[in-house]
């Protein structure tokens, strides 16, 4: 095994693999290094209980860019994504809200709660789609540097100006409003019913240390619904074989281009000589050399853990330390001996191909955020669930099931100190108790359970504080500000060092876009032909 490469990618998350795939496709000799004995980072399927395959971190696929999916032929490499059919939202009491693919059914269901809101939903969906269309166009483009006078940056700024201008004046003001306000206030403009508002607001808090009443959460709502599955914008989908199937398919594409992948090869240091990254030192002491080094780790970890502070401009170290990457989510994966039976849900609707949102109301969600701010968890947390095994026979033994539960909020550290196994289990028990309230007998079905707080997520897959986006999605850390002002184009302050994880534009989610964008910039610097596809908008 040689230890000399054109490019080394640190971390085999789905973005790292995507980046490596495009570099390898351009003919570079690439090596991806992964500290764990499995790949995928947070897009991973793991068998922790014999026969059950958990998507132990991310659990739903919606942001994956179709252009990349097609270009890397991920279908041929084994990836199959099936859209949700609908969701059930649970209110604080007996109230249930069902969403349907069928428009008439959806409308009638909304009318059951509020005729006003049923009509408002058309306006809401139309507005949200319009807002998302502008953002979607920027996803697979490198953000311009607003302080630069280079032709490329100016052209890109002009492109943006044109896109925004095309919205029309009135729309532009509405856009600014939407972009800066809270999810709750945004929704108050449309809806009157508490459960409908709660259901619509829930994407606004997933993964973020903001509440539904925090300005800026409306954008996060958009971030979660601007993806698409099979051209249906806003749709969410499940990957057959769990989220790891996505990483596995990308890895398979990468290998088909001749790429090399090493697991259990944690990087201790990125080697820097004369201000240039020129290789890595592994935890076992091995040294690997490379023309360029690409970090798929988050910005904080990259600059405070794996690069020697002495090798960095002081300014960058400070920025990395101040980078907002807050742990706010938990995950509880549960193996079940059978399907739970939820009260108020006729025919167990959507358990087969859809999600469950234990929402309550805007106030329930906001109070859970208040607990997070105080370094504790709510005894009535927001839970978003799905039972993938009801549709996918490959993830649980026949007749058995598993349920993915995502919890907002869960603090990175508790007010009375760090997480302990006891506290972690108490957190898990809170989640179980809440589900049991809506599905009596649920506890008796539990075969195995895995509770993950930010502490576990950080330790297993290396995301600082367990932040699922590799950094908060607030304006100060979006677009050309991501990860730091002046470094929004994937090139980092050391020569030959790049970043390709969700800490870069356009941010978190299993989109593969960060990795692809970074590859395009790297290939440009290396004067290699571009292998990264342009985005396409067949759906618009």
């Amino acid at each position, binding site marked *: 095994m040689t230890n000399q490469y054109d490019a080394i990618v640190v971390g085999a998350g789905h973005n790292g693999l995507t980046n490596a795939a495009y570099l390898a496709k351009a003919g570079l000799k690439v090596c991806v290094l992964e500290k764990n004995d499995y790949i995928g980072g947070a897009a991973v399927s793991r068998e922790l209980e014999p026969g059950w395959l958990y998507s132990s971190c991310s659990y739903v696929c919606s942001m994956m860019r179709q252009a990349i999916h097609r270009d890397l032929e991920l279908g041929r490499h084994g990836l199959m994504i099936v859209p949700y059919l609908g969701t059930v939202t649970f209110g604080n009491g007996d109230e249930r809200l069902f969403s349907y693919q069928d428009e008439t059914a959806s409308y009638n269901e909304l009318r059951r709660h509020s005729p006003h809101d049923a009509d408002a939903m058309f306006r809401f969906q139309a507005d949200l789609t319009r807002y998302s269309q502008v953002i979607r166009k920027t996803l697979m483009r490198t953000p311009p540097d607003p302080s630069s006078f280079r032709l490329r940056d100016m052209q890109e700024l002009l492109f943006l100006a044109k896109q925004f201008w095309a919205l029309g*004046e009135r729309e532009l*003001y509405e856009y600014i409003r939407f972009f800066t306000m809270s999810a709750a*206030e945004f929704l108050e403009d449309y809806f009157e019913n508490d459960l409908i508002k709660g259901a619509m607001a829930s994407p606004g808090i997933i993964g973020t240390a903001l509440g539904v009443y925090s*300005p*800026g959460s409306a954008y996060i709502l958009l971030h979660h619904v601007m993806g698409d599955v099979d051209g249906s914008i806003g749709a969410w989908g499940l990957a057959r074989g769990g989220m790891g199937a996505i990483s596995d398919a990308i890895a398979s594409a990468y290998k088909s281009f001749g790429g090399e992948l090493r697991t259990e090869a944690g990087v201790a240091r990125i080697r820097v000589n004369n201000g240039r990254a020129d290789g890595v030192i592994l935890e076992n002491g091995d040294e690997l050399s490379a023309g360029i080094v690409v970090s798929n780790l988050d910005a904080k970890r990259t600059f405070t853990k794996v690069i020697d502070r002495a090798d960095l401009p002081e300014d960058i170290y400070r920025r990395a330390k*101040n980078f907002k990457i807050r742990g706010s989510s938990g995950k509880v994966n549960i193996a079940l001996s059978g399907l739970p039976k939820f009260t108020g849900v006729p025919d167990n609707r959507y358990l087969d191909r859809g999600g469950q949102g234990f929402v309550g109301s805007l106030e329930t969600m906001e*109070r859970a955020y208040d607990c997070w701010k105080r370094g504790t968890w709510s005894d009535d947390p927001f839970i978003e669930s799905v039972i993938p095994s009801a549709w996918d026979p490959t993830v649980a033994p026949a007749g058995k099931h598993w349920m993915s539960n995502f919890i907002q909020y869960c603090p990175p550290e508790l007010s009375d100190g760090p997480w302990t196994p006891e506290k972690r289990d108490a957190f898990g028990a809170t989640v179980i108790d809440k589900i049991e309230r809506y599905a009596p007998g649920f506890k008796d079905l539990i075969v195995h359970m895995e509770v993950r707080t930010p502490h576990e997520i950080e330790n297993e897959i290396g995301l600082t504080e367990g932040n699922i986006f590799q950094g908060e999605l607030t304006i100060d850390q979006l677009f050309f*500000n991501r990860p730091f002002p*002046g470094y929004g184009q994937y090139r980092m302050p050391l020569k030959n060092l790049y970043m390709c994880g969700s800490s870069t534009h356009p941010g978190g989610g299993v989109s593969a876009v960060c990795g692809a964008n970074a590859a395009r910039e790297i290939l440009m610097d290396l004067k290699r032909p571009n292998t990264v596809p342009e985005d396409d908008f067949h759906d618009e």
Partner: protein
Amino acid sequence: MPRFDSIVVGAGHNGLVCASYLRRAGQRVLVVERGSSPGGLAAGIEFAEGYRSAVAHSVSHFSERVAKDLELARFGFDARAASVPLVALDEDGAHISIEDGRLAGASEADSAAFEEFHRLMNRYASTMAPFWEKTVPRLSDRSPSEVAKFAHLGVSLRLLGKQDMLEFFRIATLSARDLVDEYFEEDRLKAALCWDGLIGGRMAPRSPNSAVLAMLYRGSTGFYGQHRIGPGGVRSLVDALVDASREAGVELLCDSPVRQVVLSATQQACGVELASGEVIEADRVISGVDPKHTFRDLVGYARLDIGFSNRIERLRSEGLVAKVHLALNGLPEFAGLTQPRGRLLMAPGLDAIEFAYDDAKYGEASKQPVLEVTLPSLEDASLAPEGHHVLSAHVMYVPARHREGWTNGARDALLESVMATIERFAPGIRSQIVAAELLTPSDIEERFGVTGGHWHHTEFAVDQLLMMRPTYDAGQYRTPIDNLFLCSAGCHPGGDLVGAAGFNAAREVLR
């Protein structure tokens, strides 16, 4: 009544400023005021026999240009009066104070960090400063003079240099907490430095997007040195504005609430109808009251386009600051302070502010409120009998609408928690209290006619600023109703005792 060139509704400070400019340009101007005296939220009110105070208790960044143009110095207002310190009180007397951009009582590390923080914020605040006194054009306005304004802003930002410009784009939308966390260690200092980004708004330290802009707005005449209380305090400003406008020949009619703006057959504003039924005619009407009150009540949504009405109705105008006035039979003693001068902050840290806000989110008053306290009678002895004093407190956070209604019980509980807070820093103050007054935001709304009792008339938030203030089709002081203008804090640039909205509006009227 004869016919006027312009009628200004509301004798708040912006109304008076606007009226004075118009009169000086040769117009015949009438100001109509619902209250018995001019000044709006800055008007001194007798809250107990012999004791007076105003809702506004300090002057922060009053426009130097307006002061000069209207010769307010000649009428007793000193726009360059000595600034007053911002004091982050400590129960044991180890206070931290900021005065004229100088920090005292902080750790060495924090003092060093303050130098850089202060330099940068001052830089940004002075870059923004010229734009608060301009009319911000609509984005669709292609006329060269208006496009030049945006170009000017772009060039000003670029002239900050690459580093500072990029940093500006990052920090402009940071939450106040994130900004100060990057620089400082001491929690109480951080709370004090955040304060001017938060007070008056629906924001807490963790709220992103608008707090830093509010800080920069308030620092437009100098960062952390801007709050001034000259001799005579806030009253000197109101008196000077009234005297200056009277001398110029502005007519002022108090005790005259306006029932509606009168429209002509061609739907143009042509006067006002008072509550008494009297109609006063004018070529134009300029509203110095808040936008929601103007359009909902004085014009009436029925006479407006539905889209426009919706945009006015959705303005976020719920105030969260209550006012407490205490009449005291002597000067209270604060632990560790020889003289309780300046703005005294009772906010032990960022979490204290955040948690106080949490209660208000659900329509309850903070159980442990955070306070900004001044003793206006120190600068203006006429506010209290000799030897006596008045204490004025801004109380955060108190919702305009209490979820159970503002019952006597809820009011008593709030007043008690405010007293308990003050007492922690000024033990023994209770025995000095002669009388106390609590004004919740809804009391302020009722008494002064400001929707939601909101300091800024409508929330100072990114989407309600600049050409979008109060909404984009009324953002240049003109409204969809011909000859009806706006000149209040609900317009660009916003609230506080500044006078820029009145000044900008007068310029647009005269154009």
